[in-house]
């Protein structure tokens, strides 16, 4: 019995031509097609690693040149909000993985449910990030002609009282500004990726919901999932690099 029913990935197109309606004609079998899709997605992700990698390199260079400014300036970031966003993104990654699992099992309802939860987390992340950005803009901590830096003191995060009576900072304005330049560049690019993820997952959700052609093929959700996990990985590095800089 078990020998009669071969896994779909092992069924060769030579033996059963167009066995799976999702199989494109240029592939020998579904196994080859699936691998090609995943490797293609990974190739794109490698280019993304290069993209972010250049910014990580700039970060390391700036921080090694101005360690004191980076330690001082990072205190303006709220560790609580950063940690919350980490939990939100890690949860969204779990939900995305469960959505992919649902797609592999061809369970439409499961896919829709977990993809929707992934979207909720993505919006929550953006919401928290907007709150953080707004605060920085109010404090004139965005790079530009109106940039004005003041230390928040060694203990605790940026509290209201610290804002009202800023300590006299011996950190040069330009060096502190550099911290916020790289902060906005990296978290901004990451935020753009989150927005692209939201657009992708929303499109996918609607296509699955309304039974668009070929959406019974799990690979679309799988590839969106790979992208989303990559966005999560970038944040895994951004969080300690910006929010958690120990030292005095």
């Amino acid at each position, binding site marked *: *019995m078990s020998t009669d*029913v*071969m*896994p*779909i*990935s092992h069924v060769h197109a030579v033996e059963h031509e167009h066995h*799976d309606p999702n199989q494109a004609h240029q592939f020998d079998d579904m196994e080859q097609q699936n*691998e090609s899709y*995943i*490797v293609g997605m*990974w*190739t794109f*992700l*490698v280019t993304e*690693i*290069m993209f972010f*990698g*250049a910014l*990580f*390199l700039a970060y*390391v*260079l700036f921080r*090694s*040149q*101005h360690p004191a400014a980076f330690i001082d300036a990072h205190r303006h970031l709220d*560790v609580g909000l950063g*940690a919350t966003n*980490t*939990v939100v993104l*890690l*949860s969204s*990654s*779990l939900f*995305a*993985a*469960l959505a*992919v*699992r649902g797609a*592999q*099992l*061809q369970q439409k309802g499961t896919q829709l449910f977990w993809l929707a939860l992934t979207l909720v987390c993505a919006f929550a992340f953006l919401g928290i990030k907007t709150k953080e950005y707004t605060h920085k803009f109010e404090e004139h901590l965005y790079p530009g002609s109106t940039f004005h830096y003041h230390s928040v003191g060694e203990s605790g995060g940026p509290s209201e009282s610290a804002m009202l009576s800023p300590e006299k900072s011996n950190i040069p304005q*330009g*060096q502190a500004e550099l911290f916020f330049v790289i902060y906005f560049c990296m978290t901004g690019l990451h935020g753009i990726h989150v927005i692209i993820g939201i657009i992708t997952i929303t499109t996918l959700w609607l296509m699955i919901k309304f039974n668009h052609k070929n959406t*019974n093929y*799990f690979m679309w959700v799988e590839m969106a*999932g*790979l992208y989303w*996990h990559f966005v*999560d*990985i970038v944040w*895994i*590095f951004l*969080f*300690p*690099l910006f929010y*958690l*800089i*120990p*030292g*005095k």
Partner: protein
Amino acid sequence: MSTHVSTAPGAEIANNHHEHNVAPVMEYVKAYFGLLGLMVLTILASQHDFGTMNNVIAMVIAMVKAVIVVLVFMQVKSGTKLVWLWAALGFIWFLLLFGILGDYQTRDWVRSPGWENPAPSSNTLQQEK
């Protein structure tokens, strides 16, 4: 036997897929709690000053988290050799990129006429000319 033949092809595909590729839910849940634990660990570690080890500790924890995501969530664990190669390539390219830092680190080693270790705000290119 005949009843099995009459089952819908879609169900058959799904069942087979389930047997061969689909990871159990608990695997994802364990990875998730592992990631949360590591996040707490990295926050706790950042509250102590370990001197030069600060960055090493933070980046090692981040690397472990990234590896968990890649292996479990992105399912490279059960991927083909080609997928493993591509995932490894991403990491190798990243390391190669950081080789550029070696340039900055070693500029003092060989003295070039007219080139001094630049102050942070000075323009290196102009000095070289």
